[in-house]
């Protein structure tokens, strides 16, 4: 569900950030296939055009939460320089979650957009 938008609007910013980040993580893994934490962070940074000045470390609590929820799974693998790294991949339920949240995200943004476009005279 789109809990990060509607249900948590009263919570503090951290939760909103976590929710947004979670969606980004899911989408990244969907597009890129299995990645380790550093890879996910890099990718998010690239796509968001470095606009998100992320503390990359904040990714890890989000990864843990997604893993606990069963949206992603992880296993050890070799990194680019042949050291041990933890690789995350999307699970089936993660994919479903991604689709649902993407849809509700689009709906939400569409509504918000219409709101912003609406002019006072149009509402009369």
């Amino acid at each position, binding site marked *: 569900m789109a809990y990060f938008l509607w249900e948590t609007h009263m919570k503090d910013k951290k939760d909103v950030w976590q929710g947004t980040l979670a969606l980004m993580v899911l989408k990244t893994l969907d597009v890129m296939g299995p990645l*380790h*934490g*550093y890879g996910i962070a890099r990718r998010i940074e690239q796509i968001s055009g470095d606009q998100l000045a992320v503390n990359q*470390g*904040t990714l890890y*609590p989000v990864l843990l*939460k997604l893993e606990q*929820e069963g949206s992603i799974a992880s296993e050890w693998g070799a990194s680019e320089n042949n050291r041990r790294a933890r690789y995350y991949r999307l699970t089936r339920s993660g994919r479903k979650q991604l689709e649902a949240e993407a849809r509700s995200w689009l709906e939400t943004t569409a509504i918000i957009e219409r709101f912003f476009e609406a002019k006072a005279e149009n509402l009369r």
Partner: protein
Amino acid sequence: MKALRRMFMRVLGALTAGRREARLREEVEEHLALLTEEKIRAGMTPEEARRAAVLKFGPVESIKEEYREQRGLPWAETLWQDVRYAARTLRRDAGFTMVAVAIIAIGIGANTAIFSVLNTLVLRPLPFFAADRLVWIENDFPNNRQHGLSGITSRVDIYWEWQRLNQSFEQLEAYNAFFNRGSYSLAGDGEPERVVGVEVSRNLFPMLGVVPRLGRQFSEEESRLGGPRAALISHALWERRFSSDPAAVGRTVSLNDQAVTIVGVMPREFDFGSVFSPGTRVDLFTPLLLDEVKNWGNTLAVLGRLKPGLRIEAAQSEFQALHGPIAEKYPQMSKWFGARLEPLHDSVSGRLQMALMLLAGAVGAVLLIVCVNMGNLLLVRGEARRKEIAVRTAIGASRWRIARQLMTESLLLAAGGAIIGLMLAVAATRGLARLQGVNLPLLREVGVDGAVLTFTVLVTIASGLLFGLAPALAVSQADVHESLKEAARGMSEGLRRARVRSVLVVSQVALACVLVAAAGLLIRSFMRVLDVDLGFRAEHLAALRVDPSTRYESSEKRVALIEELVRRVRTVPGIETVSVTDALPLDRNRSWTLGAKGQEYPNGRPGAFVRFVMPGYFQAMGIPLRAGRDFSESDRKDSPAIILNETGARTLWPGESAIGRIASIRGRDEFHVVGVVGDVRHSGPEEQAGVEMYLPLLAGGDGTQSVDLVMRTKLDPQALASSVRTVLRPVDANLPVAEFKQLESLVDRAVSPRRTIVWLLGAFAMIALMLACVGIYGVVSYTVSRRAQEFGIRMALGASGRDVRLDVFRRTLWLAVAGVALGTAAGLLVTGFMGSLLYGVQARDPLTFAAAPAVLVAVALLAGYLPARRAARIDPISALRME
């Protein structure tokens, strides 16, 4: 679903915390390494790159912390941490911990034990089927209580009418309430033995839902006059006499020289005596032959089970309405019967409710004192730990966190105390359940069960929170800077904290004062009860039950046998006087109506206890002869002689001499009053003597069926038993003479409920006193050590040791007096509710209310003595140097 899964993973995470921690560390390390390499590729030096990477990654520790919080169950983990830390701290301070646990164990143990009793007697239903619908139906007519057991039991024909007419009850059953009379001699294998049997109606046990463990219930035939003789035996008798042999069922034994078949063994848990006649052992049951007892007057204890959904009030009014039709049928009985219905549960434990409430209040107060005491101890301990706590606050622990830590410690202490307290309670209730000859109902059932355990857990948590509150609050209000400064410099302590502790001590003294006063009142009542002149002298008096009824059909033969027995016992050395009665005081009672000849009694004739006695009975018992003469050897068959007690003489012929007057018993005018004797309290020390009449046993009749030989001796009565048995054996080898009782033990049993309560309350008061003592000592002693410097300075400036000692004493006295004043006021209020438990003492007995405060002040000064002496011995120089 997702939340559930996440919860599960969290629990898992909490359990595998170590492995997860390692994984996180490795992931972070690798992430940083990759990030560093990226920066190096961008042209930074390795050092710069590492720095930039760490900056980019963010605050590692706080991220890890966040990660951990999400990984497991943070509250469970910190709780576990707190518990471990608390256990460590407590272990380090073993002395304090032991004292604390011991104090709590006493409080919780006492509460658990009393709650088990309360649970059994008041809260739990009786151990019968549909116990809430069981009703006790007592006979009811004006002044019926004066008639003893005869006044509350019912006639068979009335019982039959009730059975026939009532619509309220599913079943109406009965047993013969005079079952001590139905004592049997059991012969067969081994020594003949006296056993106590109760005659029960056929469906009494089925109604109660009690099923024999072996064998069967009574059959229809067996419950009819002239049918086959049957008996159900108790589990205890089965074990004792038949070595738990299943083949005992079906065996034929000799019961009062009649062949009786044992048809079953009752279950172990079924204890008839403990419910219906506390303090009495019941060995066997025989069918109640209603056709046999129907002419014996009031004999039946009636109980029934209400139809489902029916209220007892409805049944009560139905029985009131039934009085008319039944009285029409039995006009001569109309004034002598009625019905008072009461839930069986109330009739069993009702009269104890007040005492139980008092005891519950008392243990509650003890627990409160324990909590106050613990609160105080923890406060003192908190003072000593202020530096530690200040340091923890300074490095970032929140107040809430520290308060929680202290609460955890309190709860841990409470739990420790509860475990030991529970063991104490189990031991205490076991002991209580095994008490013999104590006249309290359901005692055997008392024990620790699920309800009791729940109670203990709740009480433990509540008291842990309660006594942990004060120190936790103190911490949350403490000022870090001040704490660090004060702790370092050993200044006199803050006034406010000292005041809190004083208030705690004062309330403790007050509570103890209330308890001591209440216990004092009960002890004085008990002493008054023991001092009551029973009308006879129980010391050195022994009694032996003999029943000639079965083998000797004619009453002449029975009289001859009794006379022979008396002649023989008289030859035993050490015996001063021997006589015979058919009913010992405090043992059996039954009553007949009695009146003066020619006198009309519009409200019914008075009931009088009847005793058949041999000449010399009054002398043997130590009952004073007030006027006239004792019975003589010539008061035999058809003798019209009767002896009354003083109350009887006064009731029948007020203001006149009774000697030579003619009395009528049960409507027959033929009895000449030959003597008047002192009153005897036949129903118990706390019951006024009623009207009593004595008839000559040598005249034969009713009184010769089963009698007690009473023997006054200079020796220990128990030592006589064997020689008496030896001289009696030649008369009749099968005469059961096992039951050799001392009259003192009868008195003992009569006062046993009161004694038990006095013991318990006395013990609680002692505990309260001790705890108050510890509390005062703790506070005064602590004050002295805090003020050591001040005392040092004062002594250096010329104060003597005596001045300092007096100063400490004065403070102690002030605390004690404040507590005592409060306690006395509260005590006066509380004891007002004790009225029904007191005997011969006013609720506001001045002696008690002078003694209780005095005792407490004395104890307080005693507790203050050691610290005061220590204060006086402070060496000014070392005190000033002490930094």
